[in-house]
């Protein structure tokens, strides 16, 4: 039995990390070489993930399961990594001699997240989560010379380390109540004891560690500072790939409860409403584009939670679809941020003024991405929100859906402000046209096409999401 083939995407990531480690050790800095190496290697990683999508099996004494659920998320993570690397043509935010290390930590983080979505044992989950967090802790302070980067890095580190310690404490209670650490066993045992205080406290504490990764209220306050303090490409990665992995693991943990605990549902509903409302209201006053996207990510975490807390197959499927939609829309936003702030500085919203003349392609991509985030048809963002709300309605959470709808309307205001800056405002002084290369135009065009086409015809993606969600039940 060729069992190692199940582990192929992870092995490939490990190989990539080894290559970048080698590049970091040898010779003088050479950004072009590093960039093309990264582009090629991560491009192949999507192919590897796609080739392995139908594999099934278990590894490492049943602690590691390869199934459609994990493989779908691995494809998303591979795509996220590739697209973030595509944004690195001018990696001006990071010193040239640190470029190989930047790619190294991106790949180790992706490796860890791929392991995270496949783990079905508590210790494996913990180790994978820590590996991905540690890579991000180092990526954030890598930024060149600002001073705010170390501040953001140390805040991220302290909040993250506390959150993972809280999570570990929760895991110890789950172990104490159920006497097992395997998810398969937990699904069987935990619903029986879910009414005991120790079990529910354990589950909530455990979830808080993952909520930190997803930036759900009350574990959100690192997000704006880290988004602003980290280099633009690093922020793009934190905002996309790491959110996808967090959604996956939260789904696995919530599915453990078996839907039998009204208390857990109440906790999730409260957190979801708080995240949405807080994220949307604070985003309105933001002047910095990355801070605005940070608060918008907090509110989107709330929307995803609606799908998850429905605890039905449609709910999980809608959450998977929403995660993919969010990945594409957010990457499109960050494509514009990275290209407009090509010198690696922070982008103020006012600096978007006149973008439609400086680069019509980027302005259009930004408009569609922002409309997608706001949930305007016919983009993929609308379809995602529709599916999530429909799943909640099926369960009868009408009030929750109404609150979410109101929130979506509030969010429209600050998203429109961004579009207004790009299309209607005139810059104070005349600015040159942005030099946008052909591959960038192609990439923006491809992202826009994906957003619109899958917004109108979501059936194929939804079928895959349903099949993946079935495995959780």
């Amino acid at each position, binding site marked *: 039995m060729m069992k190692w083939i199940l582990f192929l995407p992870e092995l490939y990531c490990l190989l990539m990390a080894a290559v970048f480690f080698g590049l970091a050790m040898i010779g003088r800095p050479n950004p072009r070489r590093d960039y093309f190496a990264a582009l090629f290697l991560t491009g192949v990683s999507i192919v590897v993930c796609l080739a392995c999508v139908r594999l099934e099996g278990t590894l490492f004494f049943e602690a590691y399961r390869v199934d459609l659920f994990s493989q779908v998320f691995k494809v998303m993570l591979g795509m996220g990594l590739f697209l973030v690397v595509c944004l690195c043509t001018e990696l001006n935010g990071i010193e040239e001699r640190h470029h190989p290390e930047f790619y190294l930590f991106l790949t180790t983080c992706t490796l860890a997240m791929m392991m995270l979505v496949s783990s079905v044992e508590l*210790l494996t989950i*913990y*180790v994978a989560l*820590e590996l991905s967090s*540690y890579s991000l*802790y*180092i990526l954030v*302070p890598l930024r060149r010379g600002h*001073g*705010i980067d*170390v*501040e*953001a*890095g*140390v*805040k991220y*580190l*302290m909040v993250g*380390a*506390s959150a993972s*310690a*809280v999570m*570990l*404490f929760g*895991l*110890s*209670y789950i*172990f*104490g109540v159920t*006497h097992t*650490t395997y998810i398969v066993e937990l699904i069987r045992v935990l619903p029986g004891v879910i009414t005991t205080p120790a079990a529910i406290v354990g589950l909530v504490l455990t979830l808080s560690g993952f909520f930190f990764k997803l930036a759900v209220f009350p574990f959100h306050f690192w997000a*704006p*500072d880290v988004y*602003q*303090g980290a280099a633009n490409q690093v922020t793009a990665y934190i905002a996309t790939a790491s959110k996808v992995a967090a959604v996956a693991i939260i789904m696995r943990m919530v599915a453990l409860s078996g839907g039998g605990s009204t208390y857990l549902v109440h906790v999730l509903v409260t957190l979801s409403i708080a995240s949405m409302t807080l994220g949307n209201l604070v985003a309105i*006053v*933001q*002047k*910095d584009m990355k*801070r605005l996207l940070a608060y918008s990510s907090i509110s989107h975490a709330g929307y995803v939670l609606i799908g998850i807390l429905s605890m039905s197959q449609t709910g999980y499927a809608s959450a998977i679809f929403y995660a993919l939609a969010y990945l594409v829309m957010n990457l499109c936003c960050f494509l514009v941020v990275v290209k407009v702030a090509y010198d690696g500085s922070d982008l103020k919203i006012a600096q978007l003024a006149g973008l439609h003349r400086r680069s019509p392609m980027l302005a259009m991509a930004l408009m569609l991405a922002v409309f997608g985030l706001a949930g305007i048809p016919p983009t993929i963002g609308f379809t995602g929100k529709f599916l999530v709300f429909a799943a909640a309605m099926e369960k009868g959470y009408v009030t929750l859906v109404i609150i979410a709808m109101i929130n979506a309307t509030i969010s429209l205001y600050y998203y429109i402000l961004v579009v207004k800056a790009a299309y209607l405002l005139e810059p104070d002084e005349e600015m040159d046209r942005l030099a946008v290369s052909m591959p960038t135009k192609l990439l923006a065009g491809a992202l826009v096409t994906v957003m619109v086409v899958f917004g109108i015809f979501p059936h194929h993606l939804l079928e895959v999401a349903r099949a993946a969600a079935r495995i959780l039940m």
Partner: protein
Amino acid sequence: MNSLNIYLFIAALLFSLGIFGVFQRRSLIGMLIAIELMLNAASVNFMAFNRFLAPDPIVGQIYTLFIMGIAAAEAAIALSIIVAVFRRLRSINIERAQELRG
């Protein structure tokens, strides 16, 4: 002395001290120590549940070993970032790092 509740109580106490320390301490090293306390609370819990309840007496000990190893890695990364903070701000007091707001 030899009952599960005592150990659980000690772990909960350690954990609360850790949480309190993270919010109370202004020095980054102090916060790091508080986080280590929280990790140790989880270790105590794992060992206690393992000793009194679990059918397989190895699991908790393996967990504790892993937690020790990971805590060491975490301390290494945290200290390296704290050194970077000190070089930039000439201080490891968290109140000096207040530039990011809004």
